[in-house]
């Protein structure tokens, strides 16, 4: 197997990032999905792996941190994460 040249890898990553960022920015949710509330998204997404945590389990500041952790673990969309965290913070 050929050695991977770091310069080539960086150039490939930069070139790859252009179509990837275009695709990412072009993705959008349907009106039905966009209208979902934080409570709905909390119920649908958390239970895919574990029980749904009550809002009282953590403080508002802690939910912000857990939101980032779970966004990465469950690969939630940004909107899903924001709405779920807002719901758990009681906003």
């Amino acid at each position, binding site marked *: 197997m050929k050695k991977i040249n770091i310069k080539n890898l960086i150039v490939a990553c930069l070139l790859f990032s252009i179509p990837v960022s275009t*695709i990412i920015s072009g993705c959008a949710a349907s009106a039905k999905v966009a209208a979902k509330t934080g409570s709905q998204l909390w119920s649908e997404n958390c239970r*895919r792996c574990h029980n749904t945590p009550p809002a009282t*389990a953590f403080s508002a500041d802690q939910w912000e941190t857990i939101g980032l952790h779970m*966004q*990465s673990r469950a690969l939630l969309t*940004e909107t899903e994460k924001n709405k779920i965290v807002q719901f758990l913070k009681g906003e």
Partner: protein
Amino acid sequence: MKKSILLFGFIGGMFLFPFNANIFAQSGTDSTVIKLAQEVNSLKAGESHFLVVGLTTFGFVNSSTTTNGIKQKPSSTNTFDANHYEFSPMFLWRHGKNLLLEFEPSFDGNQIGVNWACASYFVTPGLIVRGGYFVLPFGMYNKRLAAGWIDKVATDPIGVADAPPASDWGVEAEGGLPLGSMKCSYDIAITTGYQMLHDKLQDGALQNPNGSGLTDNNNNKMVSGRFALLPFSNSSLEIGVSGIFGKVGDTNDSLYKDATTTMYAGDITYLADIRPFLLNIKGQYNVINVNKGTFPNPGDSTKTYSFSNTSTSYFGQISLRPVSLRNKIIRNFELAFRYANYITPKGSLWEQNSTQTSIGLDYWLSWRSIIKLTYETVNSNYASMGISGDKTKTNYVYLQYSVQF
């Protein structure tokens, strides 16, 4: 004269008094302002947010083993279950809104290890970049289901959790994206990679992180990735495909320097509300290929022996919980069944065909703490270079408690 001095002093005092009063008033206001500022500062969130969460799992196990039809002595053993013990605090440090540092050390009953230690930057919606030591994007069990308070049965599925290795050093890009009424996610990583062993007993096997740890034995990096689609708008179904590709041969080893591995995995998660039950189905299938399967014969080094170096493992799990019942006690019970299989290369020195059947009755004390009663049978057929070896059957009864804190 005295009178005029007193009068002058009185008038002067009249002028000076407001001035002195101002000084006192000013000083009082300042101290109030300082006090308020201190109070506000103590309440201000700041940029750094530190949080410790984690989990622990402990329990008791009864086991009895039959080898080639003969009961082993003692006929059964009762012990605190060190093999599935775990104490893992997880340190989360968030800096601002976009940077998250995660560190999870773990004492697993035999040793202290690290599950992950990495920094993640949330670049834009749909793009997270990570560097450090992290769980590889291969299947979904290791990244999402392995924690004791999430797993419905007391053990890990055989051959899925530990083969191939779960964590590695490198960089990763991932994200979740909306696709109309659907949703998808991607996860790509470039890491150090595995190392193929050729030490007779495990000729052709990949290095296991539970042993000596992953070491970089060549200049090539391993690429791994997972793509998942959630076709329903309520996220009830997730279908994932994963792959790992990389060189596993040692640069300094003339015989095996070109050894490479190709791995594939498919995984599925499905949830359905069948009132009053919540049905939860999960499964994962792994294939591990290594392109080297010819090694010196351990009995006669002038000869070689060969085998097709492919291992497979899978599990399927179904669980049922009456979440919608009014009775608080009954709705906290959950019934789980899991079947797992692990097959290592036929003709190798480490040939094994094991099946694992697990039935569990769980009780949820809260959303994050569970008591599990699991009955499990593991049937294993061992062989070496095609010659049949021991056939074992082990029955286990686990009573386990797990909590996320």
